[in-house]
C-alpha cells in the first residue's frame, strides 16, 4: 500500500513538472534550440526513470504522447521534437538488441545502425516485420532483461553529447579558416559559431565581420562582437544593408542555424537567406555550424508553418499610435535558407554536404517516429 502511495505522489510530481515545463515553453521562458533540447532530454530522463511498462511499446506510446504535448507548446521549435525522436530511436534500438540476442541468430538479425551505410539494407518492411515479430514473442516471454538502465544510460550519453557539441565542432575550425581570412557571420546569437571562432583564433589570425541582424538580435550582436574583440580577433559590426557591398572581400560566410531540415535546408535567423543568396552571387562559400540535435526529419513542404513570428514591437515602436492603427507588421524570427545556398554543414560528426543530410536523418531517427 505504502509503496503504491509513494508511487502515486511521485507520478503527481512528475506530471506537475511536465505541466510546468509545457507552460514555460509556451511563455518562451525556455528559448533557443540548445536550451530546449537540453531541457527536453533532462525531462525525458526523469520520465523514463519514473515510467513503468510491461512491454516496450507502452513506453514508446507514452513518450510519443508526451512528445506531442511538448511539440505543441512551441510548435515551431524543432529541437524538442528532435530529441524526442532520438530517444524513441534509442529505445527501439535497445529493445531490438535484446530481442535479437534472445532469438539466437544474433549475427543475421542484429541491426547495424551504428554505420549509416547499414541503412541501405534495413528498409521499412523489414523493421515492421521485426516489430510484429517482437510483439508476438514479446507477449509470451515478456522482457527478461530490464531495459531501463540501458535506456537511461543512452539518454545520459545524449545529454553529454549535447553539452560537448560545441567542442567537437570548434575543433574543426582550423581546417576551415585560413590565415588572414575575412569571415562574415550573420547569426550572432549562435553559441556554436562563437566557440568555433574563438577556438580557431588560438591558431589562426583572421578578421570577423558581424552583421547586426536588426531588429531581433541587435543587442546580442554587440555582446558577440565584444567577446570576439576581447579574444583578440579583429572584429567589425556592420549593418544589414552593408552586406552586399562588402561581400566581395569576404572569404567565408559562417552561419549558425536554428534548425536543419531533412533536405539540408536551414531555418536561420531572419536575414540569413538574403545573405546566403548574396554569398552565392559572389561565389563565397557558406559554412554552417550545427549540432546534430538541430537536425530535424521534417521536410519544408510548407515553409511558413515552420517559421516563428515574433514580437511586432521590435520592428515598429508601439508608441507611434497612428502607424500602429493603420499598418500590419510581421516580424518573422527565422528565414528558410534553401540547401542550394549552403556549401557545407559542420556537425559534431564531421563536415557534410547539405545534400547528405537526409542520410544523417535516417541514421539518427526511425521512420516510424517521423510523425509524433
Amino acid at each position, binding site marked *: 500500500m505504502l509503496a503504491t502511495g509513494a508511487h502515486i505522489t511521485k507520478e503527481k510530481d512528475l506530471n506537475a513538472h511536465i*505541466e510546468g515545463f509545457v507552460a514555460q515553453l*509556451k511563455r518562451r521562458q525556455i528559448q533557443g534550440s540548445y536550451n530546449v533540447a537540453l531541457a527536453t532530454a533532462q525531462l525525458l530522463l526523469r520520465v523514463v526513470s519514473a515510467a513503468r511498462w510491461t512491454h516496450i511499446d507502452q513506453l514508446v506510446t507514452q513518450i510519443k504522447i508526451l512528445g506531442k504535448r511538448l511539440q505543441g507548446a512551441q510548435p515551431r521549435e524543432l529541437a524538442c521534437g528532435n530529441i524526442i525522436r532520438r530517444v524513441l530511436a534509442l529505445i527501439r534500438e535497445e529493445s531490438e538488441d535484446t530481442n535479437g540476442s534472445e532469438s539466437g541468430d544474433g549475427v543475421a538479425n542484429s541491426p547495424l545502425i551504428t554505420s549509416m551505410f547499414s541503412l541501405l539494407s534495413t528498409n521499412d518492411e523489414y523493421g515492421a516485420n521485426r516489430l510484429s515479430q517482437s510483439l508476438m514473442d514479446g507477449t509470451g516471454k515478456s522482457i527478461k532483461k530490464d531495459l531501463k538502465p540501458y535506456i537511461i544510460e543512452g539518454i545520459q550519453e545524449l545529454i553529454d553529447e549535447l553539452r560537448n557539441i560545441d567542442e567537437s565542432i570548434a575543433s574543426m575550425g582550423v581546417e576551415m579558416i585560413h590565415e588572414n581570412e575575412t569571415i562574415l557571420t550573420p547569426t550572432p546569437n549562435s553559441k556554436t559559431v562563437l566557440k568555433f571562432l574563438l577556438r580557431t583564433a588560438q591558431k589562426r589570425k583572421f578578421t570577423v565581420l558581424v552583421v547586426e541582424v536588426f531588429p531581433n538580435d541587435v543587442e546580442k550582436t554587440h555582446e558577440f562582437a565584444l567577446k570576439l574583440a576581447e579574444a583578440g580577433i579583429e572584429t567589425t559590426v556592420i549593418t544589414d544593408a552593408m552586406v552586399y557591398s562588402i561581400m566581395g572581400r569576404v572569404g567565408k560566410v559562417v552561419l549558425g542555424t536554428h534548425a536543419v531540415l531533412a533536405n539540408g535546408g536551414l531555418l536561420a535567423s531572419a536575414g540569413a537567406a538574403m545573405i546566403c543568396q548574396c554569398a552565392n552571387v559572389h561565389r563565397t562559400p557558406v559554412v554552417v555550424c550545427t549540432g546534430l540535435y538541430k537536425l530535424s526529419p521534417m521536410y519544408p513542404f510548407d515553409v511558413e508553418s515552420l517559421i516563428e513570428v515574433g*514580437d511586432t*514591437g521590435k520592428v515598429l515602436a*508601439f*508608441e507611434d499610435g497612428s502607424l*500602429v492603427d493603420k499598418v500590419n507588421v510581421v516580424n518573422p524570427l527565422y528565414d528558410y535558407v534553401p540547401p542550394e545556398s549552403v556549401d557545407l554543414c559542420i556537425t559534431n560528426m564531421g563536415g557534410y554536404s547539405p545534400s547528405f543530410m537526409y542520410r544523417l536523418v535516417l541514421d539518427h531517427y526511425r521512420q516510424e517516429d517521423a510523425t509524433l
Partner: protein
Amino acid sequence: MGPKKTGQGNKTKVSKQPSQQNATQEDTNQEERLQAIVLSDSYQTRFQPLTLETPRCLLPLCNTALLEYTFEFLALAGVSEVIVVCCAHADQIKEYIAHSRWSNPSSPFTIETVLSPESVSVGDAMRDLDAKGLITSDFLLVSGDIVCNVPFDKVLAAHRQRRAKDKNAIMTMVLREASPLHRTRARAESAIFVLDEQTNQCVHYEEVKTRKHMQQISLDPEIFNKHTDLAIRNDFIDCHIDICSPDVPALFTENFDYNHIRKDFVHGILTSDLLGKTIFAHVVTDNYAARVRSLQTYDAVSKDVISRWTYPITPDSNLLADQTFQYQRGHIYKEEDIVLARSCRINSCTVIGAGTAVNDGTVITGSVIGRRCKIGKNVSIQSAYIWDDVTIEDDAIIESAIIANGAVIGTSSRVAPGAIVSYNVKIDSNVTVDGNKRLTRYLGDGHKRVDKDAVGEHGDGYVYEDDSEAEEDDDYEEIVNSSGLVYNMASLNASDTSFSTTSADQMHRKTRRRRVSTASSNTMASEDSDEDSFLREAQASVERAIAENHDLDIAALELSTLRMAKNAQFHDVRAATIAALIGRISHLINSNTLKARAAVESVLNQWGPLFRRQVFDQADQIDFLLLVQRDCTRRMQGSTILLHAINCLYDQDILEEESILKWWQAPQSKEDADMVKVGELVPRWLEWLTTAEEESDSE
C-alpha cells in the same frame, strides 16, 4: 480536493500546499517572494450589459478569458503568491480559478481568493485587505483585465533599490509610453503625470477631464524648488500596474475617503506634505502593457494581441490546454476542426475558434470568432467580436460590434458599428440594430421584457439602459462617447488635441510666472475661505470628540482626514485643536467643576497626546506656544491656564525646554498688551525651570 474553509471567515484557500510548508518557505526566501493582488472587479459599469451576467475579467479576449492574460503576466513576472479579490460574481470567478491550471500543483504561484463583497471601489478592497492582514511585504497590485509582457525583473529591482534607500518610496507605477491619440489608450481616463526627469519620481498627478476642456493644472511652487528637471507628460498608457509597499493599504485605511487608486490615492499622497511619502513611475518604452478598461480599449487590445504586440502572449501560444490555434500568414489564427466553405474569404487579423462553420460567400475581416459558431452564406463580418455559440444567418452584416455567447442574428439583419448584443439575445430577420444600442436578455428584476422595435417580431431581448452611471457621474455623456466600441473621433479627438496644446502652453506660462500666480488675489481668497471652514469644522470635531469621549486615535484620524480634504496646513490644525481644548478647560473652570490647575491637567492629560501628531520640530513648538498664548488672551484666568498648560505639556515631553525659552524670547510673544498680560506668570515658571535644570546638573 474542494475548496476548504479556513478560520478567517470567507477566505478560501485553493492552494494545495499545506500552509505550514508555506510558512517555512516564507522564512527562507523573504527576499525573493513576491505577492500579487489581483482586483477582479473593475468597479465600473462600462461593459454592461455584458457584465450583468459575467464578471469583466472573465470576458473573452481573442477567445481566452481576460483573467488568463493577467495570470500569465504574473507568471512571467515571477510572482509566487496571488490573492484574487472578488466582489461581483465572486462565485463565477472562484469556480473558474478552481478549475483552471493555476490551482494545479504545476502552477508557478499559489493562488487564493478573498471575498470582499461590500467593496464598491479599489479603496474599499484595499481597506478590506488591510483589515485581513494578508499583505506581508511589497506586492504587485493589478486589476484582472491587464495584458502585459513587460519583463518585470528590472522594474522590481529598481523598486527594491529605491525602497532600500528610502522607506518612504511606497509605490512604483508602471507606465507605457504612447502617443496621445494611441488606440490602446483609454480616452476617457487620460491623466497628466509630472515626473522628475532624473529620478522618475512622480511629483504631481492630475486626472484629465476631456469634456470639460481643462485649460490648466495648478502645481505647488515647492515642486520647482525641489526638482530641477520636470517632465509634464500626457503620453502614457497607465494600466494600473503598481508595486506597492504594505503602507499603501494602511494609508487607504487611514484615509477612508480614498476610493480611486489614482485620482484619490496618488493625487492625495502627492498633494499632502505631511506624509512625506513618495511615488515613483517606471516608464516602459518597449514591450507591451495595456488594460481593458472600456469597450474602446477592448477593441484596441484585441487588435494588439492579434497583431502580436503582446508576443509571446498570442492566440497561437494556446494559453489554455484545450486550445489548438495555429498561426497563418497575415495574422490569421485558426483552431483545429473548423469548416470553411470553399468560397468564403478569411482576411487578415482574424481569429477563428474550434467547431465553427463558415458558409459560402462569407467574408470575415479583422474579427474574432468564438467556438461552435454557425455563420451562414454571404455574411459580412468586419472588426466584430463574436463569442461562442453564436448563430449568424445568411446575408447578415456585422460591423464593429460585440455579439455575446448564444446570440442569434437573423437573415439579412444588420448590426451597426458600436452595438452590443448580449448573451442569448435573438434578433429577427431584416432588423437593423443601431450603433448606440446595447441589447440584453438579462432578467435582473424577474420579469421578461421584449422590445419588438429593437429585435423584431420574433426576436427576444430588450434595450439596456444604463441608469446608474447617469446618476452618479455627470460625465456620463463623455464616457458613453469615448468608451464605446467605436470611438467617436469627430467629436472628441479635437478636444483632446486642443487640450494637450493649450495645457502645454499654460504650463509654460505658469512656470515662468509661478511666483506671481501663487500670490494672486483670487487664489488667496479661495484659500482663506477654505481655512475658515476648516478651522470651524476641525474645532467642532475635537469638541465633539471630547464631549462624546471618543478614542484619541479616532479623533486624530478625523482631524487628519479633514486636513486632507481641505488641504489645510498643520498650523491650522493646531489652532483648531488648541481652541477646542482651551475652550473646554475654561468651560470647566467657569462652571466651577474644577480648579484651574486640575481642569488643565484633566483635559491635557487625556487629549494632550493629540499634539504629538501635530507638533514635530522646534519651529512647530514655538508656533504652538504662540497659538496657546493668543488663545488664552480671550479666556478668564488666561495667565493661569497658560502657565499650567505649559507645565503640563512640558511634563508630557510635547514641549522642550529650549523651544519654551526661544518662544519667550521671540518678539511675537510680547507683541501687544494682551499677550504680555497673559504671560505675566511665565517668568516665574521659567526661573523654576532653569534652577531645576541647574540643580539636576549639579547633582
